[in-house]
């Protein structure tokens, strides 16, 4: 658990309802981009996410994909229908921490997501904690 998540739970008497983790291999995304170009991204990412991606920094895109998948896993226990990639927009706080906004989904207003992303060698990893 991240320190921020622990502090939030301590202060708000909140409860963790889900956790999700995902790992994306950078070389898989590289070969996908090489073969099909970047046009497929519009089917999986929000316009503002696409606008913010620098494709020369492949770990940025891989981290984004891992983050979305981690959030889907973390929220799956409280939802009858799992989220899809376009329900989730990964953004950045002023502090630099990643955060999540939900789109086209009604019953997540009381949910808070804590997200952390890291990169090493050929992998990007994201972990999401879902609190309600």
């Amino acid at each position, binding site marked *: 658990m991240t320190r921020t998540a622990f502090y939030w739970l301590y202060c708000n008497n909140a409860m963790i309802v889900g956790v999700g983790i995902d790992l994306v291999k950078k070389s898989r995304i590289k070969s996908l981009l090489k073969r099909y170009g970047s046009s*497929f991204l519009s*089917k999986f990412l929000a316009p503002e996410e696409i606008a913010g991606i620098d494709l020369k920094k492949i770990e940025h895109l891989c981290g984004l994909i891992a983050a979305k*998948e981690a959030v889907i896993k973390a929220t799956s226990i409280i939802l009858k229908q799992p989220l899809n990639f376009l329900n989730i927009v990964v953004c950045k706080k002023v502090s630099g921490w990643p955060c999540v906004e939900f789109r086209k989904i009604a019953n997540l207003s009381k949910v808070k997501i804590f997200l952390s992303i890291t990169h090493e060698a050929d992998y990007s990893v994201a972990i999401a904690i879902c609190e309600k």
Partner: protein
Amino acid sequence: MENLEKLKEIFSEALSIDKSKINDNLSHGSDEWDSVSHMVLISQLEEKFNISIDIDEVIDMSSFVKAKEILKKHQINF
């Protein structure tokens, strides 16, 4: 090549699994069918069947059976 065989080949390549393991029980979320495989799958279906799959269909394509249903809407018959 028959469309069903073509579809199985696409699934086999995108999900990196043997063609013999592709059947109507295969669904998104299985070990082989993760989010990146789904991106590969959609890109290959568009390229090899020369169609454009819209966002709702991308989301809806949650199983091999669903993929066949969606392709039928694009006049790809099985």
